[in-house]
């Protein structure tokens, strides 16, 4: 009996992989590639959700300029994933649709309205990857810088409280659509929220009735102390990047403990770890695929430094390339970006880190479909369960390798979803019978 686990695709609607051979026949700007991928991931893959990362600015973190990011087409050069998810929604029925939206950039009422609309129009499949933002995106939003790390979480707590109240502003049963009694809605069940916080306020009610999921599924990626508490308290789903099974287990155990301390059933928080998969006919073939991903002009140290500078909110151009990061090194923005490379006694040099960042491979499984499937099962056994977020592109070559070669082996072993028993994202995500 294997330990069952869940799958998601962690991807982006952006330029980053524009020069991969398998993307040359697909326009990353347009909808068709993503729609096709989502259909396969749903009908043959049984994935919980397709998740889009987002960056709301072209960074200047590296060398104080947008140059590297524009020249190579890096993180930050991307479209708005919400309308892309809407396009995907009309061609799918079950797969969850998760977008990344920042509590530092969207006004809460706007965000609540957009996500409630997506939840309605998709029949209860909207998911929100709640981020407090990294980098200098605030400069596109009238502020010089984002607030300090902990204050961003104070604001996010308030933000989530407010939008949750807005989603609840139409109580269950508010919409009657009673034609004979000529009552569309019961006014007693539509309530203002009159929220007055330190950072946010809105009187409500929302102009959108209660979303099918009540509250769209919440995902979080916080890894700092404060971020973990926030996630353990509020999220339905957590996504995390770790480089080893041991580090993944530590993280998941910690989250479950925190969830318990907030009075939650730890099984109501599903922790997903990002994994890259390289699937070939033989190990050598898979390795060649991996090399082809790395062996291109946009995978180099400068790209890695630019990426890492953006994610960590620090210009790594200032540090020596061939030395490990200073022992007590911290950045103000995303506190988890450093421990990823320093915890558990790692002594990677900045150059090694930069290459890992450019390759974006972090934790990966390489080999035949059977090797990869076994690796996924083993990983989940070691970590304790929940899920794997496959970090990859939406092109058909990549997606078919996963859904047609790896997932059938997992399904044969009873490890992954056999069918969707519910229509909404959260119900499917929390369904304990998902492999039956």
């Amino acid at each position, binding site marked *: 009996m294997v330990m069952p686990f869940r799958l998601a695709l962690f991807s982006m609607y952006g*330029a980053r992989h*524009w*020069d991969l051979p398998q993307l040359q026949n697909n326009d990353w*700007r*347009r*909808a068709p590639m993503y*729609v096709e991928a989502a259909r396969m991931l749903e009908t043959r893959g049984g994935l919980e959700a397709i998740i889009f990362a987002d960056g*709301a*600015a*072209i960074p*200047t973190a590296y060398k104080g300029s*947008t*140059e590297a990011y*524009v*020249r190579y*087409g890096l993180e930050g*050069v991307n*479209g*708005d994933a*919400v*309308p*892309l998810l*809407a*396009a995907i*929604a*009309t061609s799918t029925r079950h797969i969850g649709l998760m977008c990344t939206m920042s509590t530092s*950039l*969207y*006004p*809460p009422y*706007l965000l609540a309205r957009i996500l*409630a*609309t*997506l939840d*309605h*129009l998709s029949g209860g499949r909207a998911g929100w990857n709640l981020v407090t933002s990294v980098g*200098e995106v605030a*400069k*596109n*939003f*009238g*502020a010089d810088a984002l607030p300090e790390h902990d204050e961003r979480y104070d604001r996010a707590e308030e933000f989530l409280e407010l939008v949750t109240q807005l989603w609840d502003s139409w109580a269950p049963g508010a919409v009657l659509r009673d*034609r004979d009694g*000529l*009552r*569309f*809605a019961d*006014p007693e069940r539509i309530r203002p929220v009159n*929220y007055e916080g330190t950072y*946010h*306020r809105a*009187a409500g*009610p*929302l*102009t*959108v*009735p209660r979303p099918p999921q009540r509250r769209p599924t919440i995902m979080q990626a916080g890894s700092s102390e404060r971020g973990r508490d926030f996630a353990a308290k509020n999220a339905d789903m957590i996504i995390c990047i770790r480089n080893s099974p041991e580090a993944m287990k530590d993280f998941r155990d910690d989250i479950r403990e925190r969830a318990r301390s907030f009075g939650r059933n730890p099984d109501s928080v599903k922790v997903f770890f990002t994994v890259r998969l390289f699937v070939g006919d033989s190990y050598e073939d898979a390795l060649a695929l991996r090399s082809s991903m790395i062996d291109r*002009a*946009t995978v*180099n140290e400068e790209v890695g430094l630019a990426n890492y500078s953006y994610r960590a909110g620090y210009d790594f151009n200032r540090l020596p390339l061939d030395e490990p990061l200073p022992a007590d090194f911290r950045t103000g923005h995303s506190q988890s970006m450093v421990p990823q490379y320093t915890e558990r006694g790692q002594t990677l040099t900045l150059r090694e880190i930069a290459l890992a960042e450019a390759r974006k491979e972090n934790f990966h499984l390489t080999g035949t479909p059977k090797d990869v499937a076994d690796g996924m099962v083993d990983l989940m056994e070691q970590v304790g369960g929940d899920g794997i977020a496959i970090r990859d592109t939406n092109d058909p070559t990549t997606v078919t390798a996963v859904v047609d070669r790896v997932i059938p082996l997992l399904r044969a072993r009873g490890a992954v979803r056999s069918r969707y028993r519910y229509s909404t994202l959260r119900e499917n995500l929390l369904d304990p019978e998902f492999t039956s």
Partner: protein
Amino acid sequence: MTDKRPIRLGWVSSISPAGWEDDRFPQMLDWTRPEMYVEMTRVLESAGFDFVVLDDEQLTPDAYEGSLAAAARRGVALPQLDPSVLIPMLAAHTRSIGFVPTLSTALYPPFILARLVRTLDHLSDGRVGWRPGTTVSRWAARAAGLAPPGGGEQRERVEEYMRVVAALFASWEPDAVVEDPVSGTFADPEKVRPIDFVGQYYQVRGPLNVVPSPQYDLPVFHTVAEEADIGFAAAHADVAIVPFAPVEEIRGVREELRHRAVSAGRSPDAVRLYVGLNPLAGRTADAREAISRPLPETECIEFGLVRLSCGTGIDLASVPLDEPLDDTLTKQIESSPFGRSAAIARASSLREAAAAVGVAGPYDVSGDAEEIADDLERIADATACDGFVLRGRWIPTEVNYVANHVAAVLRMRGRMAPRERSSRLSDRLPAEPARSS
């Protein structure tokens, strides 16, 4: 008549349950799901409509008796979904019709708006415009936690907003993206620049993070509801929607738009003029009666009163129904979205005004397909407008009649534009200069 320029058609509606009380609104259809909107949009596309404007009406649902109760019970003024999310769904199931979401400049930060509409343009292969929602009702501002709406400052703010959005679009030169895998060059950094915008209301560094889309600059639509809108439309809009009014008035607006466009450094023909019009279209007088009065008369008047209150922001609950309207009230109604209607202007009492508003009025023209087509031809020829934006609800029988009968008559008469044209929205607006009189 020798002037047989094509009459171009657009449709405007919000994502709301409007018409739910009508027997013709299919019980099985769920207004919160995309299917009905997709179907109706396909019908409009087949009939040769060039675009659908998705409205986001700025109303005051708690005006009547100072509470939401009356509006909620009748399903008027609320609920309304966000227009932008529906558009990719409509685009996925159509190929040539365009989409114009109304997006509040008070609610959307300009960076988020610019990236949203440019993304929509990518996802629809160049079929998107946008309509800045430049006014916000006091209720909507309070609900969303925004500052209360204010006169002159709001205009300045919106002007600045438009400058930010234009600068963000221009932050990538049209040929900035090169995508050369050999050198690893995605884009030429010389052609992508921060905007470093520092205004009175907005500070935006830029550049936009979405690459240029099929249309590069997106058509801007604007409704000319009051005097100040003329200047705004002349400076920023590609399409001005002028609510139906006496022919001389529309001609006056048109001349003013042309004149002011030139003052703003644009061509006099830069702003296309579409007349916004709410038709009561049905095959017979009985059919039209069923549309305009689907409920007993007292109920229709109640609906009309609540809609008029929500539209004007005035509590009409305690105003006597059968006495002549006093001057103050008349002025307030005149300055509301309903106020330009001839039927309202004719009303000598609140009862008559409420009856004209009813469940879906006031109507500007009424008749069967031939008669409506006559009216459209007459108005188009007399005003030299470029087309009409017809207001309607998503009731299948209504959409079907307007699309497959009214538009069909216009096509029979040779007044519709040829079918096979570019699907870019900017190409579907008239390119030829509107003929001056």
